[in-house]
């Protein structure tokens, strides 16, 4: 009994002296920023257009401006920009995800269109080749029919 109480006391003392490590706000923000950048890059690799990427880049640069405001020593009200940064990052992330879906769909459509176009081109090429050969054969037949047998 005494041993278990002593053990409990030791554990409690340990927990009081060594609190659980908590990530700093800037660390959390840098992790969030990395996640947003990853999503933006996913949208880009999915085939987002330059104008869509410009919108995302502008949103991220706005986040940087807010972060600069936060770092300015004169700024006394720091709580507002911090929450604004988080909201702005969330907005960019949502936009990036939407753009990724649209871009992926567009890229898929474009690929299908290209492959169908290639199939149609090969069909046309086959028809052209077929009629070209046919025409050539006809010309040959005509030439043969026009031939005269001359007795020597």
């Amino acid at each position, binding site marked *: 009994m005494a041993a278990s109480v002593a053990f409990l006391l030791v554990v409690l003392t340990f927990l009081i002296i060594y609190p659980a490590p908590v990530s700093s706000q800037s660390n959390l923000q840098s992790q969030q920023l990395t996640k947003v950048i990853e999503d933006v890059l996913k949208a880009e690799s999915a085939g987002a257009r330059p104008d869509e990427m410009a919108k995302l880049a502008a949103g991220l*640069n706005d986040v940087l401006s807010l972060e600069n405001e936060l770092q300015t020593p004169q700024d006394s009200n720091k709580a507002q920009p911090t929450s604004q940064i988080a909201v702005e990052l969330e907005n960019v992330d949502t936009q990036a995800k939407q753009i990724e879906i649209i871009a992926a769909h567009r890229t898929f459509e474009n690929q299908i269109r290209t492959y169908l176009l290639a199939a149609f081109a090969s069909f046309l090429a086959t028809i052209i080749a077929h009629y070209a050969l046919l025409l050539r054969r006809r010309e040959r037949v005509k030439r043969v029919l026009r031939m005269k047998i001359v007795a020597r």
Partner: protein
Amino acid sequence: MVKLNFRRLRRLLPVFLTFLILFETVAIIATTPKPRTRFFEFYVLGANGSAADYYPNNSSFIQTGQPITWFLAVINRMSSMQFIDIRVRLANQSLTAPNDTTLSPSSAPVVADFERFIQNNQTLKVPFIWQVQNFTTTSQGSSRIVQLQIGNVTYSLQNAPTCVTSCSFRFIFELWTWSLESSQFQFAWWNGNEQQIAWLQLWFRLTPGVP
């Protein structure tokens, strides 16, 4: 018009398949992104936005309170959007510059930095307007910049490098890129299997009066 009967169609099938393979191969090659060399173009322009007129009156002797305008330009050729940080360091002649072999940054202290997101194939131009607001000179003849203004921000420099008489100061501009793996800026970027760095430096001398 010649009717396409079954025999003709059977004869045309190999021709069609040959064309199909040929055209689809072309389509696949055209739609597959090609591996490209990934790099940044990094340069500094003078007050007029050209590679000239870096200093007023073409003299690198700078007086206190004399504003100097440069433009830091970065072109992203990394095939994707990049998060970059241009770090500005103030150095003298003895402090080490970035090492292209070991890919290590300069040992000079960072006085300012510019973080930006830059799209692929886009040019970023950051105005770098600076002036030395105050510098001290000791009896031994060594000088030290104590107050520097970059843009609208005034920096009081605590550990700025000193410079003995007739030596020069320099600004070292380093290009850092965000690493997604480590969630922090890194000095070098990857181009395939090799790492590359980009940095620039511009020298200047301090003068109390007109040179």
